[in-house]
Protein backbone atom coordinates (compact mmCIF):
# COMPACT_ATOMS: atom_id res chain seq x y z
CA UNK A 1 0.00 0.00 0.00
CA UNK A 2 1.16 3.53 -0.83
CA UNK A 3 2.22 5.43 2.25
CA UNK A 4 3.36 9.00 2.68
CA UNK A 5 4.15 11.36 5.50
CA UNK A 6 2.95 14.31 3.44
CA UNK A 7 0.34 16.13 5.49
CA UNK A 8 -2.45 18.43 4.46
CA UNK A 9 -0.45 21.23 6.08
CA UNK A 10 2.37 20.51 3.65
CA UNK A 11 -0.04 20.79 0.76
CA UNK A 12 -1.25 24.10 2.10
CA UNK A 13 2.38 25.21 2.35
CA UNK A 14 2.87 24.27 -1.30
CA UNK A 15 -0.21 26.20 -2.35
CA UNK A 16 1.02 29.24 -0.45
CA UNK A 17 4.25 28.92 -2.40
CA UNK A 18 2.25 28.70 -5.60
CA UNK A 19 0.48 31.92 -4.66
CA UNK A 20 3.83 33.67 -4.28
CA UNK A 21 4.82 32.31 -7.70
CA UNK A 22 1.66 33.83 -9.17
CA UNK A 23 2.25 37.16 -7.43
CA UNK A 24 5.80 37.29 -8.75
CA UNK A 25 4.61 36.43 -12.25
CA UNK A 26 1.96 39.15 -12.22
CA UNK A 27 4.38 41.73 -10.82
CA UNK A 28 7.13 40.86 -13.28
CA UNK A 29 4.78 40.76 -16.27
CA UNK A 30 3.26 44.10 -15.28
CA UNK A 31 6.69 45.72 -15.31
CA UNK A 32 7.83 43.72 -18.33
CA UNK A 33 4.75 44.46 -20.42
CA UNK A 34 4.53 48.18 -19.68
CA UNK A 35 8.22 48.69 -20.37
CA UNK A 36 8.16 46.24 -23.27
CA UNK A 37 5.30 48.04 -25.05
CA UNK A 38 7.02 51.40 -24.63
CA UNK A 39 10.45 50.14 -25.69
CA UNK A 40 9.01 47.99 -28.49
CA UNK A 41 7.14 50.96 -29.97
CA UNK A 42 10.29 53.07 -29.75
CA UNK A 43 12.38 50.36 -31.34
CA UNK A 44 9.89 49.92 -34.18
CA UNK A 45 9.45 53.60 -34.96
CA UNK A 46 12.97 54.91 -34.31
CA UNK A 47 15.23 51.93 -35.03
CA UNK A 48 18.42 53.96 -35.35
CA UNK A 49 18.01 56.36 -32.47
CA UNK A 50 17.13 53.57 -30.06
CA UNK A 51 20.05 51.30 -30.96
CA UNK A 52 21.72 51.88 -27.55
CA UNK A 53 18.48 50.75 -25.89
CA UNK A 54 18.65 47.55 -27.92
CA UNK A 55 22.21 46.93 -26.71
CA UNK A 56 21.21 47.35 -23.07
CA UNK A 57 18.21 45.06 -23.46
CA UNK A 58 20.40 42.52 -25.21
CA UNK A 59 22.47 42.23 -22.04
CA UNK A 60 19.39 41.33 -20.00
CA UNK A 61 18.24 38.93 -22.68
CA UNK A 62 21.58 37.15 -22.89
CA UNK A 63 22.89 36.87 -19.32
CA UNK A 64 21.43 33.93 -17.38
CA UNK A 65 18.69 35.05 -15.06
CA UNK A 66 20.35 33.47 -12.03
CA UNK A 67 23.43 35.65 -12.50
CA UNK A 68 21.20 38.71 -12.80
CA UNK A 69 19.45 37.83 -9.53
CA UNK A 70 22.66 37.33 -7.60
CA UNK A 71 24.31 40.44 -9.04
CA UNK A 72 21.31 42.67 -8.46
CA UNK A 73 20.90 41.34 -4.94
CA UNK A 74 24.56 42.04 -4.19
CA UNK A 75 24.27 45.49 -5.76
CA UNK A 76 21.29 46.17 -3.57
CA UNK A 77 23.27 45.37 -0.44
CA UNK A 78 26.29 47.39 -1.56
CA UNK A 79 24.15 50.40 -2.42
CA UNK A 80 22.29 49.96 0.85
CA UNK A 81 18.89 49.95 -0.81
CA UNK A 82 16.11 48.99 1.53
CA UNK A 83 13.85 46.93 -0.69
CA UNK A 84 12.35 43.53 0.00
CA UNK A 85 13.48 40.34 -1.66
CA UNK A 86 10.07 40.15 -3.29
CA UNK A 87 10.57 43.57 -4.89
CA UNK A 88 14.02 42.50 -6.07
CA UNK A 89 12.45 39.41 -7.61
CA UNK A 90 9.80 41.48 -9.40
CA UNK A 91 12.29 44.02 -10.68
CA UNK A 92 14.86 41.55 -11.98
CA UNK A 93 12.23 39.32 -13.56
CA UNK A 94 10.41 42.41 -14.85
CA UNK A 95 13.48 43.79 -16.61
CA UNK A 96 14.23 40.35 -17.99
CA UNK A 97 10.65 40.07 -19.28
CA UNK A 98 10.83 43.61 -20.69
CA UNK A 99 13.86 42.70 -22.77
CA UNK A 100 11.90 39.90 -24.43
CA UNK A 101 8.63 41.78 -24.58
CA UNK A 102 10.33 44.64 -26.44
CA UNK A 103 11.20 42.30 -29.29
CA UNK A 104 7.71 40.78 -29.28
CA UNK A 105 6.07 44.22 -29.50
CA UNK A 106 8.56 45.45 -32.08
CA UNK A 107 7.87 42.54 -34.41
CA UNK A 108 4.13 42.99 -33.90
CA UNK A 109 4.25 46.66 -34.86
CA UNK A 110 6.44 45.95 -37.87
CA UNK A 111 3.96 43.28 -38.99
CA UNK A 112 1.26 45.91 -39.58
CA UNK A 113 1.25 46.48 -43.35
CA UNK A 114 2.52 49.93 -44.33
CA UNK A 115 -0.40 50.18 -46.77
CA UNK A 116 -2.92 50.02 -43.93
CA UNK A 117 -1.16 52.88 -42.20
CA UNK A 118 -1.21 54.88 -45.44
CA UNK A 119 -4.92 54.22 -45.77
CA UNK A 120 -5.46 55.48 -42.23
CA UNK A 121 -3.39 58.60 -42.84
CA UNK A 122 -5.15 59.20 -46.17
CA UNK A 123 -8.42 59.51 -44.23
CA UNK A 124 -6.94 62.41 -42.31
CA UNK A 125 -5.98 60.46 -39.21
CA UNK A 126 -2.95 61.79 -37.36
CA UNK A 127 0.15 59.78 -36.57
CA UNK A 128 -1.14 59.09 -33.06
CA UNK A 129 -4.66 58.22 -34.18
CA UNK A 130 -3.19 55.75 -36.66
CA UNK A 131 -1.04 54.29 -33.88
CA UNK A 132 -3.91 54.04 -31.43
CA UNK A 133 -6.69 52.79 -33.68
CA UNK A 134 -4.90 50.82 -36.40
CA UNK A 135 -1.35 49.85 -35.44
CA UNK A 136 -1.79 48.86 -31.81
CA UNK A 137 -4.92 46.69 -32.22
CA UNK A 138 -3.43 44.80 -35.17
CA UNK A 139 0.02 44.51 -33.57
CA UNK A 140 -1.58 43.16 -30.39
CA UNK A 141 -3.14 40.29 -32.31
CA UNK A 142 0.21 39.47 -33.91
CA UNK A 143 2.23 39.80 -30.71
CA UNK A 144 -0.17 38.08 -28.33
CA UNK A 145 0.93 34.42 -28.80
CA UNK A 146 4.56 35.44 -28.24
CA UNK A 147 3.58 37.41 -25.17
CA UNK A 148 1.65 34.46 -23.77
CA UNK A 149 4.73 32.29 -24.22
CA UNK A 150 6.66 34.87 -22.27
CA UNK A 151 4.15 34.74 -19.39
CA UNK A 152 4.53 30.96 -19.12
CA UNK A 153 8.30 31.16 -19.32
CA UNK A 154 8.46 33.90 -16.68
CA UNK A 155 6.16 31.88 -14.43
CA UNK A 156 8.66 29.05 -14.45
CA UNK A 157 11.64 31.37 -14.16
CA UNK A 158 10.21 32.67 -10.88
CA UNK A 159 11.61 29.45 -9.40
CA UNK A 160 15.02 31.11 -9.49
CA UNK A 161 14.06 33.67 -6.85
CA UNK A 162 14.47 31.01 -4.19
CA UNK A 163 18.18 31.80 -4.41
CA UNK A 164 17.52 35.20 -2.91
CA UNK A 165 15.41 33.80 -0.12
CA UNK A 166 11.82 33.97 -1.29
CA UNK A 167 9.64 30.97 -0.53
CA UNK A 168 7.74 30.32 -3.73
CA UNK A 169 6.45 27.03 -5.05
CA UNK A 170 9.78 25.32 -5.79
CA UNK A 171 11.43 26.49 -2.57
CA UNK A 172 8.38 25.34 -0.61
CA UNK A 173 8.58 21.90 -2.15
CA UNK A 174 12.31 21.65 -1.36
CA UNK A 175 11.63 22.50 2.25
CA UNK A 176 9.13 19.68 2.45
CA UNK A 177 11.45 17.28 0.62
CA UNK A 178 14.16 17.98 3.17
CA UNK A 179 11.82 17.08 5.96
CA UNK A 180 9.89 14.06 4.69
CA UNK A 181 12.51 12.71 2.26
CA UNK A 182 10.03 11.92 -0.51
CA UNK A 183 11.42 14.01 -3.36
CA UNK A 184 9.63 12.22 -6.19
CA UNK A 185 6.17 12.67 -4.75
CA UNK A 186 6.67 16.27 -3.68
CA UNK A 187 8.27 17.33 -6.95
CA UNK A 188 5.47 15.61 -8.87
CA UNK A 189 2.92 17.60 -6.91
CA UNK A 190 4.85 20.85 -7.38
CA UNK A 191 5.18 20.08 -11.09
CA UNK A 192 1.47 19.42 -11.29
CA UNK A 193 0.70 22.77 -9.69
CA UNK A 194 2.97 24.56 -12.21
CA UNK A 195 1.25 22.64 -14.98
CA UNK A 196 -2.24 23.57 -13.85
CA UNK A 197 -1.33 27.24 -13.48
CA UNK A 198 0.23 27.28 -16.96
CA UNK A 199 -2.74 25.44 -18.39
CA UNK A 200 -5.17 28.03 -17.08
CA UNK A 201 -3.12 30.90 -18.51
CA UNK A 202 -2.70 29.13 -21.85
CA UNK A 203 -6.42 28.31 -22.08
CA UNK A 204 -7.49 31.86 -21.31
CA UNK A 205 -5.09 33.06 -23.99
CA UNK A 206 -6.26 30.53 -26.53
CA UNK A 207 -9.84 31.62 -25.99
CA UNK A 208 -8.93 35.25 -26.67
CA UNK A 209 -6.96 34.29 -29.76
CA UNK A 210 -9.83 32.26 -31.09
CA UNK A 211 -12.19 35.17 -30.72
CA UNK A 212 -9.82 37.36 -32.75
CA UNK A 213 -9.30 34.71 -35.39
CA UNK A 214 -13.00 34.37 -36.02
CA UNK A 215 -12.90 37.97 -37.18
CA UNK A 216 -9.66 38.23 -39.08
Amino acid at each position, binding site marked *: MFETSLTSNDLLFLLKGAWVTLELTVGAMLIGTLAGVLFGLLRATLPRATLPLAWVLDVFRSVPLLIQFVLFNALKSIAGLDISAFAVGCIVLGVYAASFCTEIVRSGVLAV*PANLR*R*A*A*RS*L*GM*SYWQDLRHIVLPIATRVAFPGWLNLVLSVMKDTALVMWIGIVELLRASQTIVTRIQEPLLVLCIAGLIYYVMSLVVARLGARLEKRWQEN*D
Partner: protein
Amino acid sequence: MIEIDNVYKSFADLEVIKGVSLTVNKGEVVSIIGGSGSGKSTLLMCINGLEPIQKGSIRVDGTEVHAPGTDLNKLRQKIGIVFQQWNAFPHLTVLENVMLAPRKVLGKSKEEAEALAVKQLTHVGLGDKLKVFPSKLSGGQQQRMAIARALAMSPDYMLFDEATSALDPQLVGEVLDTMRLLAEEGMTMILVTHEIRFARDVSDRVAFFRNGLVHEIGSPDQVIGNPQKPETADFLKSVL
Protein backbone atom coordinates in the same frame (compact mmCIF):
# COMPACT_ATOMS: atom_id res chain seq x y z
CA MET B 1 -9.30 72.75 -58.14
CA ILE B 2 -6.13 70.67 -58.14
CA GLU B 3 -3.18 72.41 -59.76
CA ILE B 4 -0.10 70.33 -60.42
CA ASP B 5 2.74 72.48 -61.62
CA ASN B 6 6.00 71.10 -63.00
CA VAL B 7 6.34 68.38 -60.35
CA TYR B 8 9.43 66.23 -59.98
CA LYS B 9 9.54 63.18 -57.73
CA SER B 10 12.29 60.63 -57.15
CA PHE B 11 12.70 57.56 -55.00
CA ALA B 12 16.38 57.62 -54.06
CA ASP B 13 18.16 57.73 -57.44
CA LEU B 14 15.11 56.78 -59.46
CA GLU B 15 13.26 59.76 -60.91
CA VAL B 16 9.66 58.68 -61.53
CA ILE B 17 7.97 62.02 -62.23
CA LYS B 18 9.90 64.44 -64.40
CA GLY B 19 8.03 67.68 -64.63
CA VAL B 20 4.31 66.96 -64.71
CA SER B 21 1.77 69.77 -64.96
CA LEU B 22 -1.95 69.08 -64.84
CA THR B 23 -4.97 71.02 -63.68
CA VAL B 24 -8.16 69.31 -62.60
CA ASN B 25 -11.22 71.54 -62.26
CA LYS B 26 -14.14 71.10 -59.89
CA GLY B 27 -16.56 68.47 -61.15
CA GLU B 28 -14.13 67.14 -63.69
CA VAL B 29 -13.22 63.47 -64.14
CA VAL B 30 -9.67 62.98 -65.37
CA SER B 31 -8.25 59.56 -66.16
CA ILE B 32 -4.55 58.84 -66.19
CA ILE B 33 -3.46 55.93 -68.33
CA GLY B 34 -0.02 54.60 -69.14
CA GLY B 35 2.34 51.70 -68.66
CA SER B 36 3.61 50.63 -65.27
CA GLY B 37 6.44 52.74 -63.96
CA SER B 38 5.19 55.81 -65.80
CA GLY B 39 4.66 57.64 -62.50
CA LYS B 40 0.87 57.79 -62.51
CA SER B 41 0.21 56.12 -59.14
CA THR B 42 3.05 58.05 -57.52
CA LEU B 43 1.45 61.31 -58.65
CA LEU B 44 -1.74 60.45 -56.74
CA MET B 45 0.28 59.81 -53.56
CA CYS B 46 1.91 63.21 -54.01
CA ILE B 47 -1.44 65.00 -54.40
CA ASN B 48 -2.51 64.24 -50.83
CA GLY B 49 0.98 64.46 -49.41
CA LEU B 50 1.50 60.77 -48.70
CA GLU B 51 4.70 61.13 -50.73
CA PRO B 52 6.94 64.22 -50.72
CA ILE B 53 8.00 65.84 -53.99
CA GLN B 54 11.42 67.19 -54.95
CA LYS B 55 10.44 70.11 -57.16
CA GLY B 56 7.41 72.00 -58.41
CA SER B 57 4.16 72.54 -56.59
CA ILE B 58 0.77 70.96 -56.02
CA ARG B 59 -2.10 73.17 -54.88
CA VAL B 60 -5.48 71.90 -53.77
CA ASP B 61 -8.07 74.69 -53.61
CA GLY B 62 -5.15 77.09 -53.36
CA THR B 63 -3.45 75.26 -50.46
CA GLU B 64 0.15 74.36 -51.15
CA VAL B 65 0.27 70.62 -50.33
CA HIS B 66 4.01 70.36 -49.82
CA ALA B 67 4.58 73.66 -48.02
CA PRO B 68 6.09 73.13 -44.55
CA GLY B 69 3.19 74.71 -42.63
CA THR B 70 0.39 72.83 -44.37
CA ASP B 71 -1.87 70.78 -42.09
CA LEU B 72 -1.89 67.59 -44.13
CA ASN B 73 -4.36 65.83 -41.83
CA LYS B 74 -6.83 68.59 -42.53
CA LEU B 75 -6.11 68.68 -46.23
CA ARG B 76 -6.54 64.92 -46.56
CA GLN B 77 -10.05 65.17 -45.17
CA LYS B 78 -11.18 66.60 -48.47
CA ILE B 79 -9.17 64.26 -50.68
CA GLY B 80 -10.45 60.69 -50.58
CA ILE B 81 -8.18 58.02 -51.99
CA VAL B 82 -8.91 54.43 -52.94
CA PHE B 83 -5.97 52.11 -53.29
CA GLN B 84 -5.31 49.15 -55.53
CA GLN B 85 -5.01 46.95 -52.45
CA TRP B 86 -8.24 47.96 -50.78
CA ASN B 87 -6.61 48.17 -47.33
CA ALA B 88 -9.58 47.25 -45.18
CA PHE B 89 -8.80 47.51 -41.46
CA PRO B 90 -8.98 43.80 -40.58
CA HIS B 91 -9.81 44.23 -36.88
CA LEU B 92 -12.92 46.34 -37.50
CA THR B 93 -16.30 45.43 -38.96
CA VAL B 94 -17.40 46.96 -42.23
CA LEU B 95 -19.45 49.52 -40.35
CA GLU B 96 -16.59 50.34 -37.97
CA ASN B 97 -14.16 50.67 -40.88
CA VAL B 98 -16.31 53.43 -42.32
CA MET B 99 -17.18 55.04 -38.97
CA LEU B 100 -13.63 55.34 -37.65
CA ALA B 101 -12.38 58.43 -39.46
CA PRO B 102 -15.63 60.45 -39.19
CA ARG B 103 -15.59 59.81 -35.44
CA LYS B 104 -11.91 60.37 -34.73
CA VAL B 105 -11.02 62.93 -37.37
CA LEU B 106 -14.26 64.88 -37.81
CA GLY B 107 -15.29 64.38 -34.18
CA LYS B 108 -18.79 63.18 -35.04
CA SER B 109 -20.86 61.43 -32.39
CA LYS B 110 -21.31 57.66 -32.55
CA GLU B 111 -24.89 58.05 -33.79
CA GLU B 112 -23.98 60.61 -36.45
CA ALA B 113 -21.04 58.56 -37.69
CA GLU B 114 -23.11 55.41 -37.78
CA ALA B 115 -25.91 57.05 -39.75
CA LEU B 116 -23.34 58.45 -42.15
CA ALA B 117 -21.59 55.09 -42.55
CA VAL B 118 -24.84 53.22 -43.10
CA LYS B 119 -25.82 55.75 -45.76
CA GLN B 120 -22.51 55.43 -47.61
CA LEU B 121 -22.42 51.64 -47.34
CA THR B 122 -25.95 51.38 -48.65
CA HIS B 123 -24.94 53.70 -51.46
CA VAL B 124 -22.23 51.27 -52.59
CA GLY B 125 -24.51 48.26 -52.13
CA LEU B 126 -23.16 46.91 -48.84
CA GLY B 127 -26.13 47.75 -46.64
CA ASP B 128 -26.50 44.09 -45.66
CA LYS B 129 -22.84 43.62 -44.63
CA LEU B 130 -22.57 46.16 -41.82
CA LYS B 131 -21.64 43.80 -38.99
CA VAL B 132 -19.39 41.59 -41.10
CA PHE B 133 -15.60 41.62 -40.87
CA PRO B 134 -13.71 42.48 -44.07
CA SER B 135 -12.16 39.02 -44.30
CA LYS B 136 -15.62 37.64 -45.04
CA LEU B 137 -16.05 39.93 -48.05
CA SER B 138 -14.97 39.40 -51.65
CA GLY B 139 -12.33 41.69 -53.10
CA GLY B 140 -14.95 43.68 -54.94
CA GLN B 141 -16.98 44.15 -51.78
CA GLN B 142 -13.89 45.21 -49.84
CA GLN B 143 -13.05 47.72 -52.52
CA ARG B 144 -16.58 49.13 -52.44
CA MET B 145 -16.24 49.36 -48.65
CA ALA B 146 -13.01 51.30 -49.15
CA ILE B 147 -14.87 53.69 -51.45
CA ALA B 148 -17.61 54.15 -48.84
CA ARG B 149 -14.92 54.72 -46.20
CA ALA B 150 -13.39 57.51 -48.25
CA LEU B 151 -16.81 59.00 -49.09
CA ALA B 152 -17.83 59.08 -45.42
CA MET B 153 -15.36 61.94 -44.97
CA SER B 154 -17.43 63.95 -47.50
CA PRO B 155 -14.37 64.64 -49.66
CA ASP B 156 -14.36 67.21 -52.44
CA TYR B 157 -12.01 65.07 -54.49
CA MET B 158 -11.66 61.34 -55.01
CA LEU B 159 -8.47 59.73 -56.25
CA PHE B 160 -8.58 56.15 -57.50
CA ASP B 161 -5.25 54.33 -57.73
CA GLU B 162 -5.87 51.37 -60.03
CA ALA B 163 -8.90 50.53 -57.93
CA THR B 164 -9.79 47.46 -59.98
CA SER B 165 -6.34 46.10 -60.85
CA ALA B 166 -6.16 43.62 -57.98
CA LEU B 167 -9.67 42.26 -58.49
CA ASP B 168 -10.82 39.08 -60.15
CA PRO B 169 -12.25 39.92 -63.59
CA GLN B 170 -15.83 39.13 -62.61
CA LEU B 171 -15.62 41.58 -59.68
CA VAL B 172 -14.33 44.53 -61.67
CA GLY B 173 -17.76 45.50 -62.95
CA GLU B 174 -19.35 46.13 -59.56
CA VAL B 175 -16.54 48.49 -58.54
CA LEU B 176 -16.59 50.34 -61.85
CA ASP B 177 -20.36 50.75 -61.49
CA THR B 178 -19.82 52.36 -58.10
CA MET B 179 -17.21 54.70 -59.57
CA ARG B 180 -19.47 55.54 -62.49
CA LEU B 181 -22.23 56.43 -60.06
CA LEU B 182 -19.89 58.85 -58.31
CA ALA B 183 -18.84 60.45 -61.58
CA GLU B 184 -22.48 60.95 -62.55
CA GLU B 185 -23.13 62.61 -59.20
CA GLY B 186 -20.54 65.22 -60.11
CA MET B 187 -17.63 64.17 -57.90
CA THR B 188 -14.27 65.55 -58.96
CA MET B 189 -12.17 62.49 -59.66
CA ILE B 190 -8.73 61.49 -60.82
CA LEU B 191 -8.58 57.89 -61.93
CA VAL B 192 -5.38 56.00 -62.50
CA THR B 193 -6.67 53.06 -64.44
CA HIS B 194 -6.02 50.29 -66.92
CA GLU B 195 -9.72 50.07 -67.78
CA ILE B 196 -9.46 52.01 -71.01
CA ARG B 197 -13.08 51.59 -72.07
CA PHE B 198 -14.29 52.74 -68.69
CA ALA B 199 -11.94 55.72 -68.82
CA ARG B 200 -13.34 56.65 -72.21
CA ASP B 201 -16.90 56.38 -70.89
CA VAL B 202 -16.68 58.42 -67.72
CA SER B 203 -13.81 60.86 -68.22
CA ASP B 204 -13.92 64.47 -69.28
CA ARG B 205 -10.23 64.29 -70.09
CA VAL B 206 -7.68 61.53 -70.45
CA ALA B 207 -3.94 61.92 -69.85
CA PHE B 208 -1.44 59.43 -71.21
CA PHE B 209 1.66 59.20 -69.01
CA ARG B 210 4.96 58.05 -70.34
CA ASN B 211 8.37 58.10 -68.63
CA GLY B 212 7.20 60.38 -65.86
CA LEU B 213 5.64 62.96 -68.17
CA VAL B 214 2.22 63.82 -69.58
CA HIS B 215 2.76 62.57 -73.09
CA GLU B 216 -0.66 63.34 -74.48
CA ILE B 217 -3.78 64.84 -72.95
CA GLY B 218 -7.22 65.69 -74.26
CA SER B 219 -10.78 64.50 -74.53
CA PRO B 220 -11.31 60.73 -74.39
CA ASP B 221 -12.37 60.62 -78.02
CA GLN B 222 -9.22 62.41 -78.97
CA VAL B 223 -6.64 60.56 -76.83
CA ILE B 224 -8.21 57.11 -76.92
CA GLY B 225 -10.22 57.34 -80.11
CA ASN B 226 -7.71 59.19 -82.26
CA PRO B 227 -4.29 59.44 -80.56
CA GLN B 228 -1.93 61.95 -82.09
CA LYS B 229 1.31 60.47 -80.82
CA PRO B 230 2.59 57.06 -81.96
CA GLU B 231 3.53 56.04 -78.38
CA THR B 232 -0.07 56.60 -77.24
CA ALA B 233 -1.36 54.54 -80.12
CA ASP B 234 1.13 51.76 -79.34
CA PHE B 235 0.14 51.71 -75.69
CA LEU B 236 -3.57 51.59 -76.51
CA LYS B 237 -2.98 48.80 -79.00
CA SER B 238 -1.19 46.78 -76.30
CA VAL B 239 -3.96 47.08 -73.70
CA LEU B 240 -7.15 47.11 -75.75
